[in-house]
C-alpha cells in the first residue's frame, strides 16, 4: 500500500518544527516532519526561560547582544552615544505575540502531561530579575519603563528591595527591574511533548533525514530532495532554524536567517537558591527544576561553529560570579553551545513568501523559540489550513526585508 502524499512536509526537528507538526496534526492535516540531527540545534542550547516581556525589551539574554550591537554602531559612527540606541525595545506586535504565547503555557503543559505523559517542567517562580550594574544600564531601564504599556508585570526595584527579594544576589548593583510574569520550562521536554502529541494525532516523523534541497517547479515548491530521494508535498514548511537560509536558497528564495552561537555553562545541582531568573549585562542565570544552574550565554557570529571557547566560558563564569557570588564554588556539569536562528531585526520569519506557492516560513525565532512556540505553531497552522490567523502575521513576513531594502535605497 502506497503511503499517501502528505499534505505538509516540515523541515526541521526543533521546538518550532515539533510544535507546528502538533498544531497541524490536530487539525487533521497529513503532516510529516523531516530532521537531521546536526550539531548546534538551538532547542538543546536554550535555557528554557519564558521571558516574553524580558526578551521583547532587550532585558533577557538580549542584553548582551544589544550591548555588542550598540558598541558596534557607536564604533561605526552611527550613534553619538551607545545610550541613544533604542534597538533593544522590539516592536509591540512581537511583544504581543510573546505575551500571548506565554499565556498558553499553563494549560498547554497540563494538556501535554495528561495526553503524552511528558512533563514540560513548567514552573512559575519569582519571575525575571534584571540587575542593573551602572548608570548607563539604569538609563536604559528607564527608557523601557516609559515604552511599556500598563498592565504588564514590570517593576523598578531599589538595590535594597532587590536583595531582599533575592538574598543570594550580588550587593553591587545600582538598581533592578522585576518582571514577575516570566517563568521557566524545560526546553528539551517541551519539544519532546510537542513531538509525542503530534505523533498521537497521526503526524509522521523521519529522523536522520537530511533535506538537500527544495524542489521548485516554476512558482511552486512541490516537495523536497533528500539523500534517499524525492518526497512530494502540498506545502513545505521551513523550520530549519539556523539552516533556514541555506534551505531556502536551494529554491532561489530569500530567508535571511543567520546562526548566532550561544555558549552555555550548566552547574551541578544546588538546593534552590534563586526565587527568580537573573539577567545582567554579563550573563543570565536560571536555576532549573532539578537544581542545576544554567548560565548563559554568548552571542557570536561565527558561522556554524559549535565549539566552546576558553574566552566564552571564562566570560560567562565571570558574569555569573559577579551576579551570584555563591556560584563561585559550584562545580560545572557541562558546557556546550548552540546556534540560534538570528535575524537582523530580531523578529521571527513566519508565513508565506511573496511570489511562491507551497512554501511557508516558521523560523528566525532567535532568542525566543521556546516561549514563542505555542503561538507561532498556531499562526503557522492557521495560515496553512486557511484559517484567519489569530494574531497579525504581517510584521513577520519575509517580504519585510525586501521592502526595507527598497526603502533604504530609495530614501
Amino acid at each position, binding site marked *: 500500500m502506497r503511503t499517501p502524499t502528505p499534505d505538509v512536509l516540515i523541515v526541521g526537528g526543533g521546538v518550532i518544527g515539533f510544535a507546528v507538526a502538533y498544531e497541524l496534526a490536530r487539525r487533521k492535516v497529513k503532516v510529516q516532519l523531516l530532521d537531521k*540531527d546536526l550539531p548546534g540545534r538551538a532547542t538543546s542550547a536554550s535555557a528554557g526561560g519564558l521571558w516574553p516581556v524580558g526578551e521583547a525589551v532587550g532585558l533577557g539574554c538580549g542584553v548582551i547582544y544589544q550591548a555588542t550591537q550598540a558598541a558596534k554602531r557607536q564604533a561605526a559612527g552611527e550613534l553619538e552615544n551607545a545610550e541613544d540606541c533604542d534597538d533593544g525595545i522590539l516592536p509591540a506586535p512581537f511583544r504581543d505575540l510573546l505575551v500571548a504565547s506565554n499565556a498558553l503555557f499553563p494549560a498547554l503543559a497540563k494538556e501535554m502531561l495528561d495526553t503524552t505523559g511528558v512533563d514540560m517542567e513548567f514552573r512559575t517562580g519569582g519571575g525575571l530579575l534584571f540587575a542593573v550594574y551602572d548608570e548607563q544600564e539604569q538609563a536604559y531601564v528607564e527608557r523601557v519603563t516609559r515604552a511599556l504599556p500598563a498592565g504588564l508585570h514590570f517593576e523598578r526595584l531599589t538595590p535594597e528591595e532587590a536583595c531582599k527579594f533575592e538574598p543570594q544576589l550580588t550587593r553591587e548593583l545600582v538598581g533592578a527591574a522585576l518582571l514577575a510574569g516570566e517563568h521557566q520550562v524545560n526546553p*528539551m*521536554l517541551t519539544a*519532546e511533548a510537542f513531538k509525542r502529541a503530534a505523533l498521537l494525532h497521526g503526524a509522521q516523523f523521519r529522523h536522520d533525514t537530511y533535506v538537500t534541497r527544495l524542489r521548485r517547479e516554476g512558482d511552486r515548491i512541490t516537495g523536497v530532495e533528500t539523500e534517499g530521494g524525492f518526497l512530494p508535498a502540498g506545502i513545505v514548511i521551513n523550520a530549519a532554524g539556523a539552516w533556514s537560509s541555506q534551505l531556502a536558497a536551494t529554491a532561489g528564495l530569500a530567508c535571511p536567517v543567520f546562526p548566532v552561537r550561544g555558549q552555555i*555553562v550548566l*552547574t*551541578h545541582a544546588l538546593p534552590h537558591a534563586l526565587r527568580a531568573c537573573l539577567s545582567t549585562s554579563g550573563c543570565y542565570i536560571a536555576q532549573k527544576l*532539578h537544581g542545576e544552574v544554567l*548560565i548563559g550565554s554568548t552571542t557570536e557570529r561565527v558561522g556554524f561553529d559549535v*565549539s*566552546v*571557547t*576558553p574566552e566564552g*566560558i*571564562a566570560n560567562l*563564569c*565571570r558574569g*555569573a*560570579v559577579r551576579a551570584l557570588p555563591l*556560584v*563561585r*564554588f*559550584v*562545580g*560545572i*556539569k*557541562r*558546557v*556546550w553551545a548552540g546556534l540560534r536562528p538570528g535575524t537582523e531585526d530580531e523578529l521571527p520569519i513566519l508565513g508565506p513568501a511573496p511570489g511562491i506557492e507551497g512554501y511557508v516560513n516558521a523560523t528566525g525565532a532567535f532568542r525566543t523559540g521556546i516561549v514563542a512556540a505555542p503561538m507561532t505553531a498556531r499562526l503557522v497552522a492557521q495560515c496553512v489550513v486557511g484559517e484567519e490567523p489569530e494574531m497579525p502575521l504581517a510584521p513577520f513576513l519575509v517580504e519585510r526585508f525586501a521592502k526595507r531594502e527598497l526603502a533604504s535605497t530609495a530614501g
Partner: protein
Amino acid sequence: MIPRRVVIVGAGPAGMSAALVLAEAGLRPTVLDENPRPGGQIFRQPPEGSAAAQAPPKDATAQHGAELVKRFAAAGARIELMNLTSVWAIFPERRLAIGHREGWQVVAPEQLVLATGAYEYTPPFPGWTLPGVMTPGGAQSLVKTWSVRPGKSAVVAGSGPFLLIVAAQLAAAGVDVRAVVELARQSEFLRQTPRLLSSPGLLFEGAGMLRKLRDAGIPMLWGHVVCAAQGENGALRSVSVAPCNQDGEPERTRARTIEVDTLAIGYGFVPRIELAQLAGCELEFRDDLGGWIPKTNSEGESSVPKVWVVGDGGGVSGSVVAELEGELAGLAIAERLGCLDSATVARRKHPLLARLAKLRRFRLALDTVYRIRPGIARLAAKDTLVCRCEELTCEEADKAVGFGGNDFRTLKVMSRLGMGPCQGRMCWPAMMRRIADRTGHSMEHIGPSRFRPPVRPTTVGDLLQLIPFEDHPEPAGASARGAR
C-alpha cells in the same frame, strides 16, 4: 595559550613509555597527569614514607612497574611532568584546557598523545549500590597502595584473570576471601590452552595464581555469577551466588548466600575515551577491547592527524601492550618531528611489533574465554538503579527505551540517564548492551555516550582567570590544595 611540541595525557605505562622514547630522542615531552605521582592505576605509587612504599615489590609485574617509574623519574627535567593536572576540555586544533592548582590554562601541542587508561565494567544488579560493593581494582588499590583492608571478608566476582590477582592480594592482606565467582567456564579456558601457550610466561603466571588460591583454600566458582547483594544497616552483609548457563544467565533456584562485608565485582575494563571523543576521533565498537575505542592505525595515530591514542584508553590489552604501544607512538612521533631517522625507527619498531603480535594471540584466546555474556546485562530487577548518579531505576530506563530512547542523547533527555557527574561512564556500557539486547539494534546504531566538557571536576570559580605559566618547576610532593 602555551605552545608545546608534544603533550602526553596520562602517566601510566603507555604514557611513561612514550615520554621516555621522546625524551631520549631529544624532544622534551610534557606529561600531564591528574594524580600526585606517575604510575597510572596499575603502577600507582603508595604515599611516600608509607610501609607499602618501603616494601619490596611482591611480584614480577610490580617489580617491572617500579623500574619503569624509576626510569621515568631519572629522566628528570628532560620530561616536563605536570602532576595534579587534569584536562577538562579539548578545543579545536588539539588545544587542551588544563586545570591545575594555580588556575587554568590552554596548552596547544603540535602532537597530542592520549594515554588515559581504562576503568572497570560492572553491570547493575540488585544491591550493587550498597557500601561494601566496589570494583576489583578499587579493592586491590586499597590493599596494595593504601595498606588498608576493604573489610574483613570478601567475595571477588565478575570475569577476567584480574580477579585472581585481586583475590590473591586480598588474601595476602588478611582478608577472608570466601570465593572467586567467575562468569567464564573452566572447560572453555582449558580448550584455549594451545593458544595461551603462545605466551607461556603469562600462562604459567595464571596457572600459578590459580594454584595460590587453591592452596589458600579459596573456592574458584567457574560458571557462576553474583546475582544479588543484601545489606543491613546501610552496608553489605551477604551476596547471592548462582551457577549460570552459557549465556551468563543465573539459575536462581540454585543460588546460595555467602556472608561477606565486601564484594569486589567487575567484568573487565572500559577504555576512557572522553578526550579522544572531544578531540573528534572516530570511534568503533570492539567488544573484545572493552567497547567503544578510537580508531587508530598500527602506530597509534587516530583518525585525527597528530592525535595519538595508546594503552588501555585505545582498547584494553593490559600494561605490557600499553608500554609497547607507547614506545611505538613515541618512535613514530620522533620520526615525524625529525628527531629520529627512518632507519633507526624501523629497526626499533620491528621487535616491538613482533612482541605485540604474539601478545595479541594470547589476548585473543583470553577474550574468547572471558567474553561478556548477555546474561549479565539482565541481572537488574525492576527497582535496581541503572543510573547510580541520577538514581534511575531499571523500570524507568526500560520505559524510556521503549519510547524510542535507543541512543545516549535521546535517552538522556527522556530519563536523565547519564546526566549526573559521571556523564554515563558507569551506566552506559551496561545500558547500551541492554538496549541492544531488547531492541536488536547493533551497537553501531546505538552509539557511544557523548562526553561534554568539563570531563574533570571544575568549579565556576576555577575558570575565571587564565593563569599564565611557562616551564613548570618540578613539584615537591602533594600540594596544599590536594588532588582535584
